[in-house]
Each structure stands twice: as C-alpha cells, then as structure tokens.
C-alpha cells in the first residue's frame, strides 16, 4: 500500500494540473480510500452516529462548561473561521492578482513537481489516517 501510494504521489508530481489523467487518478485514490474505510471499519466505530450527533450538538451549545478544553476548541474554531473568511475576502473583495489567497499560497508549492508530489503524498497519508485510524479493536 505504501509503495502504491508513493507511486501515485510520484505520478501526481509529474503530471500537470490540467493533464487528463489527474482527475481519474484522484478519483481512484478517493474511491480506494472510501472502500478501505468501509471494509476496515465494519462494527469498529467507537460511537453510533446518532449518539455522536446528539452529544456533539449538546457540547456545541455549552462549550464553556468543559473548562479550558472548551476554550481551546473555540480557539480552533475561531482560527479556522478566520482563515476561511480571510480567503473569501481576498478572493471576492480584494480581487487583486497579487492577493495572497490560499490557492496562490498552495500553488507556490504545487508549481514544482517535487512539492506537488510531497503534498500529494501528505494528502494520501491524511486520507489513510482518517479512513483507518482511531477504531475499536476487531470484534
């Protein structure tokens, strides 16, 4: 699996953004990750979705009841919202070709094949961790 992921990352590094194989490559990676998530995760989730949704909604209504942990979560939420809002302002309001949008910042990394390949490998690694990580032991 590591070798396959490495090969995909190398291929993504070599291909241009608008090359025809890029979308099928990405689609295959997404489908394979989803399939691995379903196969590896049967009866191994730590919580049921309904219970998780209810407890999350309850925690979101009163975040400060959880002490400094609640403050920490609020800080992360504020950080993410600020980043999203800033990018939207740069894209929709400033509209300058020199505006430092997230796309431009990331584009500086993906402009080079090595940067593109490394970022693709990191993206695959993150997807694998989300799909396979943090599960109960097999029944």
């Amino acid at each position, binding site marked *: 699996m590591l070798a396959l992921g490495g090969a995909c990352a190398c291929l*993504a590094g070599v291909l241009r*953004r*608008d090359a025809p194989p*890029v*979308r099928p490559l*990405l689609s295959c*990676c*997404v489908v394979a*990750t*989803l399939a691995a*998530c379903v196969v590896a*995760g049967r009866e191994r*989730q*730590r*919580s*049921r*979705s309904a*219970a*998780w*949704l209810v407890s*999350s909604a309850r925690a979101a209504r009163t975040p400060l009841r959880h*002490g*400094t*942990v609640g*403050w*920490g*979560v609020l*800080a*992360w939420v504020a*950080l993410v919202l*600020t*980043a999203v809002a*800033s990018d939207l302002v*740069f894209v929709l309001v*400033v509209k300058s070709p*020199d*505006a*430092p*949008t997230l*796309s*431009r*910042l*990331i*584009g500086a990394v*993906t402009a080079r094949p090595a940067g*593109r390949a490394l*970022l*693709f490998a990191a*993206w695959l690694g*993150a*997807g694998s*961790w*989300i*799909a396979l*990580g*943090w599960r109960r032991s097999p029944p």
Partner: protein
Amino acid sequence: MSAGSALWLALGAAATLLAVAGEARPRRLPRVADLAHWWMASWAGRVALLAAWAEAGFHVFTQRP
C-alpha cells in the same frame, strides 16, 4: 511584506501555538489528534471528514490558483 501575507503568517503562528500548547497540556487543552478523533468516532463524522479531504484534494490538485 503585505498585510495579507502578515495575516497568514499570524494565523499559522497561532495554529502552531495552539497545537504545541495542546501537546504540552493535553488535559487542559485539546490536541489536534483529539479534535480529529472526535470527528472519527462515528461513521457520520468520519464520512464528513473524508468528504472534506476529497474536496480539498480535487481543489488543490486540479484547479488553477
């Protein structure tokens, strides 16, 4: 340095500070892994995370900046 670049630097510094603080005081502040694990606890959260991951991938690797 432009104001926009300074803003991104400040956001990056704040994120790094929060992440380091969370690792240093795991019982008082949430770690990045704890936040991800909260999403990954159920199928609903995990699928939502994967959808965001897939969308980010298509946006970064196929769209022109």
